[in-house]
């Protein structure tokens, strides 16, 4: 944590209320976010127990699994989840606008512009916290290799129709969430923690209820006291008034309320089975329905407070105006969504179990670029974030005190004006250090010339670009005396590093040929380490405008449809997902 944010935390301790870390909102909030509050059983290693899901805060859809060990019930849950999520995803898929994309022509190797569709907007998924994001990934992983009866009539436990498709989408969202600054899949706690500092530690900030209490205490009183109540208050039955935001439920809930209810459900099911069509069947059916209803009510009681908390958090975030460069990052999310839509439509197989070396390296590189870009953009959008960079000497604000025209020493001299700035900041400038300012949203660079002798805080920089082609600088391209300008020592527009070779040119030691062709499926029943196959074909990388390609989307739709499906996971009597 930077010192300036630590200071904000300490101010929060003193005042008993969270303190702002930003002056604008640095993430996109969809007008119609899909909120997903999953619950899992603590004892069953993360088997789904239920969920609240939907886009309408007043009427979430409640999905439940009455007996988490029952595969059919789990499948029914997943099918319901697909029913709740996929139409929402689909509703964004056909609203497109034309856009251009740079691609490498596979034959000539030349870069060409291609006209493609870009979805106008993308569906956003919000979960309560980081474990929620992990669970989205887990669900995605568990579903995408499943087979439906239609795909494979012999598959031992066929999955409901749209479940594998949902698995692919959740996998895509889960992967995208690893890209810094992306807003496709967000955790409410991360969103709030980005924008406010509480008077507690990062660990405690993962508790959604406590976090909200610091930011917006229900009674307007002390955030600290409200947070403590959220963490500890229990009712007469020993249940937390503010249940954990999941997915794992509170052990006291599991043991005291849920376990007996599931037992009753099991017994009711048994006696219904025993009654068959006999005289008692109706009665037993009623008992089963009651038991099921009881479980639904219990799960709703655990998930509803979290559901409401997520929406309350979104309300608070909406009060902040969106940062100017958020739309730029969201455009990349739209590309990501569109790219996956295209891969699904073109019949590509699901994402592989393991990335091949090139894809993995590309993802890593693009995430590093995204991180640097996010940091730069947030600082440019927000004086409070910039303050942190000023403190660390990576940026400064200077008032122009003098402008002296000067020219480069070439045959056709270009303007290279010298700007004298007064600044109280302490930027870490060395000889010819490059600095940047934002001119109409584009970076203009200058280099540091030196400090004025004697004049404390006076420094001189030489402007080096964006002044037009003429001998005289273009109108408005040179700052004027009296202007206050924010300069950064970091670049505004981070570009990707060196290009990685295509799969065809990658040595086999790094996942290239000859393994590529046969890598469509994992060896059956082989050792776990042997599951590393299933690499899809990787063609020339797609380049988004301005060569800022999120590598997660770097694969264009494959022109070779109907590859063999990767093998499903081993299935046993007692598997958990």
């Amino acid at each position, binding site marked *: 944590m930077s010192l300036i944010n630590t200071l904000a935390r300490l101010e929060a301790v003193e005042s008993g209320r969270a303190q702002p870390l930003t*002056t604008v909102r640095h993430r996109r909030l969809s007008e119609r976010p899909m909120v997903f509050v999953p619950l899992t059983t603590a004892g069953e290693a993360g088997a789904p127990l239920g969920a609240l899901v939907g886009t309408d805060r007043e009427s979430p859809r409640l999905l439940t699994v009455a007996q988490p060990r029952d595969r059919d019930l789990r499948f029914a849950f997943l099918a319901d989840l697909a029913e709740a999520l996929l139409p929402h995803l689909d509703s964004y898929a056909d609203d497109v606008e034309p856009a251009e994309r740079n691609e490498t022509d596979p034959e000539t190797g030349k870069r060409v512009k291609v006209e493609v569709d870009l979805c106008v907007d993308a569906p956003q998924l919000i979960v309560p916290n980081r474990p929620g994001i992990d669970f989205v990934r*887990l669900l995605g992983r568990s579903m995408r290799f499943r087979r439906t009866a239609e795909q494979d009539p012999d598959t031992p436990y066929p999955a409901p129709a749209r479940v594998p498709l949902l698995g692919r989408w959740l996998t895509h969202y889960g992967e995208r969430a690893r890209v810094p600054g992306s807003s496709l899949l967000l955790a409410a706690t991360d969103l709030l923690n980005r924008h*406010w500092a509480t008077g507690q*530690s*990062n660990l405690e900030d993962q508790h959604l209820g406590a976090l909200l209490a610091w930011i917006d205490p229900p009674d307007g009183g002390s955030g600290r006291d409200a947070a403590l109540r959220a963490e*500890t208050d229990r009712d007469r039955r020993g249940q937390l008034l503010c249940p954990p935001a999941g997915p794992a439920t509170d052990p006291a809930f599991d043991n005291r309320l849920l376990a007996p209810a599931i037992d009753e459900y099991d017994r009711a099911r048994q006696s219904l089975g025993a009654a068959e069509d006999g005289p008692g069947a109706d009665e037993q059916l009623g008992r089963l329905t009651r038991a099921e209803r009881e479980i639904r009510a219990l799960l709703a009681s655990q998930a509803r407070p979290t559901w409401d908390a997520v929406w309350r958090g979104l309300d608070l975030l909406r009060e902040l105006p969106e940062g100017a460069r958020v739309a730029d990052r969201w455009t990349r999310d739209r590309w990501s969504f569109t790219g996956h839509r295209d891969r699904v439509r073109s019949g590509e197989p699901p994402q592989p179990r393991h990335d091949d070396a090139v894809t993995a390296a590309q993802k890593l590189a693009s995430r590093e670029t995204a991180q640097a870009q996010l940091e730069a953009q947030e600082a440019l959008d927000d004086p409070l974030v910039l303050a942190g960079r000023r403190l660390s000497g990576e940026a400064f604000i200077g008032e122009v005190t003098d402008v002296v025209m000067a020219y480069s020493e070439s045959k056709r001299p270009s303007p290279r004006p010298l700007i004298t700035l007064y600044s109280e900041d302490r930027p870490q400038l060395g000889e010819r250090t490059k600095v940047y300012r934002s001119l109409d949203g584009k970076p203009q660079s200058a280099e540091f010339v030196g400090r004025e002798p004697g004049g404390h805080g006076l420094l001189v920089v030489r402007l080096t670009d964006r002044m037009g082609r003429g001998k005289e600088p273009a109108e408005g391209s040179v700052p004027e005396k009296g202007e206050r300008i924010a300069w950064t020592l970091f670049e505004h527009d981070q570009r990707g590093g060196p290009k990685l070779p295509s799969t065809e040119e990658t040595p086999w030691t790094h996942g290239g040929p000859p393994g590529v062709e046969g890598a469509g499926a994992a060896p059956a029943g082989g050792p776990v380490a042997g599951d590393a196959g299933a690499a899809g074909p990787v063609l020339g990388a797609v380049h988004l405008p301005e060569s800022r390609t999120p590598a997660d989307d770097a694969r264009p739709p494959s022109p070779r449809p109907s590859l063999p499906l990767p093998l499903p*996971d081993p299935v046993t009597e*007692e598997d*958990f997902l």
Partner: protein
Amino acid sequence: MRGNAFEARVKADGGTELLRLLHERMGAGARPPVPGEVLVPDLTAAGPEGRVARTALALREATGAAGGSAAWTLLVHPLLALEVAGSPAYLEPDAVVVRPDGRWIVVEIKSFPMIDSSADPSKVGAAARQAAVYVLALERVAARVTGAAVDHSVLLVCPRDFSNLPTASVVDVRKQLSVTRRQLTRLTRIDDIAASLPEGTSFDLERCSPAELTAAVDAVSAAYAPECLAACELAFHCRGQARSAGAVEALGRGVRGELGGLTTVGAVLAAARGESTPGVADDDPTVVALRRAAALRAEALESVPEGLEAVSRGPGSVPEGAVAGCR
């Protein structure tokens, strides 16, 4: 529970599946174990001391046997003793296997899944720390058995993907071992802590009033950090103490490191406001940085148009000067 069912399944049939996995991952060229020929000694005995002695004997016999007959031995739920802060603690690993070459290997069976051959790193880390303690306790036994050595890698067995089929992975616990060793030597002996307490201090939950208990707990020094919340039942109590003392550690260990000689919230905020703190020079680098941070933050917040500050600043009160105790 799934965890118990899975462990039972892994150990079923005299540990056939478990030994197959172990041979596959850590066999070191030994002859594969033959089902039915694996020795599974009975470790039942009266009382913990009896079980510890029984375990030690079984280990000794297995190691001796290994030298001659090249047999594999599986010890299910052996009991080990380790001295912690001067008192014995009993430990029960899921299993220990003695390889034909006399090497002892700790086996940890966990119910969290290994998906695409990797598991949740925090859970693997916790399992490694736990297994390291077993290795340490086993080494105390091995020191008295000729030809015995404890492997510093352990076998972690987990369900594979989403099934209940076991898969295994070798975890090197050398780092956890050295950390645990160091921690054990640095622990203050319980006797010494007891001796430092006021006469008549008692932690008896049945006989003490809440006030007496609180006083007793507070008599022991504590070093609260947010990590305690996940590990210790006293955490809320210690946190309350640390907070009311204004200790900056309550916000995280890293925060403490950033703030140099300033240890309380009050002192830090006073320094940031430009007030002098006794014992801390005005040109102390932390103090200078804090003042600049406060000035930059205030400037940035002032530049924000009206109405954007969703959270207003309220007056606060923080007890000053107090330094956190350590329990």
